[in-house]
């Protein structure tokens, strides 16, 4: 069973269709990169799956449970349960500026999952170690670099033990020399077979790490396939034009 199943997803702002009949699936342990020009709807698609945008029609099912079926959303209680399987990393990090790194990581597991302090603390140590920030536990986000903030944001999402981790342009707000440290953490996660959906402009990363690429343009999935298929042998003109522009 696919862990994410999207069927005929439709969303519009007024008369503008931002997502037109989108259908795709993500399998467990798969890394899917969504690429495409600005305004193609890729972030909106990701945000719809995370329930940060409301869709007008279609289905979204996570691990076999419908978040939306034929445009009808599940009950609030079920939505909570479905969403708890997903973690999200944002372009602008959205760390809580009034909390230290440690508290950014520990607040949700303690408050939402009601986990014990010692369990949470152990996991927090492991994850900060993993993203290379074990020494910054007591720092406030204001004292971190962009790359460090994004690594904390990834660790914060992982604290909730999600089955799926979604990234909305995780390196777009970073200085070029800082993207590497974030992408490396993401590569490690891919190697550990984390299921990931990544909206990205990093073609190198998409090519190297993704199992599958989805190319979107003007609210539609134009083409999807393995990195080789998309990058070496794109089938449509739109894909070719886009790739030529970004790889120049």
């Amino acid at each position, binding site marked *: 069973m696919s862990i994410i199943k999207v069927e005929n997803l439709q969303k519009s702002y007024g008369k503008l269709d931002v997502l037109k009949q989108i259908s795709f699936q993500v399998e467990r342990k798969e890394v899917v990169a969504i690429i495409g020009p600005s305004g193609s709807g890729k972030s909106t698609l990701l945000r719809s799956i995370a329930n940060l945008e409301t869709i007008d029609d279609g289905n979204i099912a996570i691990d076999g449970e419908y978040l939306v079926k034929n445009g009808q959303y599940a009950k609030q209680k079920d939505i909570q349960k479905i969403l708890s399987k997903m973690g999200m990393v*944002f372009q602008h990090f959205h760390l*809580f500026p009034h909390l230290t790194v440690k508290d950014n990581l520990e607040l949700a597991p303690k408050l939402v999952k009601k986990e014990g302090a010692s369990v949470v603390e152990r996991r927090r140590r492991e994850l900060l170690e993993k993203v290379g920030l074990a020494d910054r536990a007591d720092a*406030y986000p204001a004292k971190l670099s962009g790359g460090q903030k994004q690594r904390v944001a990834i660790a914060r999402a992982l604290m909730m033990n999600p089955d799926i981790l979604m990234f909305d342009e995780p390196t777009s707000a970073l200085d070029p020399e800082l993207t590497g440290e974030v992408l490396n953490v993401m590569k490690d996660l891919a190697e550990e077979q984390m299921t990931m959906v990544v909206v990205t402009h990093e073609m190198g990363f998409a090519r190297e790490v993704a199992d599958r690429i989805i190319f979107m343009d003007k609210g539609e999935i134009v083409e999807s396939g393995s990195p080789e298929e998309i990058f070496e042998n794109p089938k449509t003109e739109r894909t070719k034009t886009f790739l030529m522009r970004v790889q120049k």
Partner: protein
Amino acid sequence: MSFDYFEMIIMPMLEGAKITLLLFAIVILLSIPIGFVLTLAVRSRIKPLSWLVQGFIYVMRGTPLLLQLLFICFGLPLIPVIGEYLVLDRFVAACVGFVLNYSAYFAEIFRGGLLAIDNGQYEAAKVLGFNRWQTMTKIIIPQMIRVSLPTVSNESITLVKDTSLLYAVAVPELLHFAQTAVNRDATIVPYFVAGFIYLMITLALTWVLKRIERKYRFE
């Protein structure tokens, strides 16, 4: 001018300062939470509630505090039929007026504070599974406090000075005793003493507020 004279005028003025401080404390303690509730009401999805509160804030900010105090102290009892039940103790009436007025100001300050918080904070809280109550209490309000603090500080200092409006409704506070002494002794010294006491109060307040601001700097 003898030391005895100072002693004679300063004791009643310090008594008056107690009233000043009492009013200040009551108004701060009540109008900050009420102001926050008003902010939430303005943002409420129940439109009539939002309009009602916006109207209230408009009136409170758009008319002089002195007018409001006079109205509550001397105007309410003149209302036909129900007026006789609205004769409040002067100090209580003044407290009511100040709390209503300052709540409206604090509501606007907090509204600004909430507007300053990036929508991403709500989204991050949502994807982590926080419910609305947890999001407000743990994520949004602490940040709102940080943003609002400098303005709240400013408003608090204004409040210390506004307490002197009690003079107009004949509640014997600091300025009242100063004026009495000036009238009685034909000397300007009591004004200086009163000014000095106000300065001491605002100095202490500034110090406390600075410490609170430091605590909320998050660095």
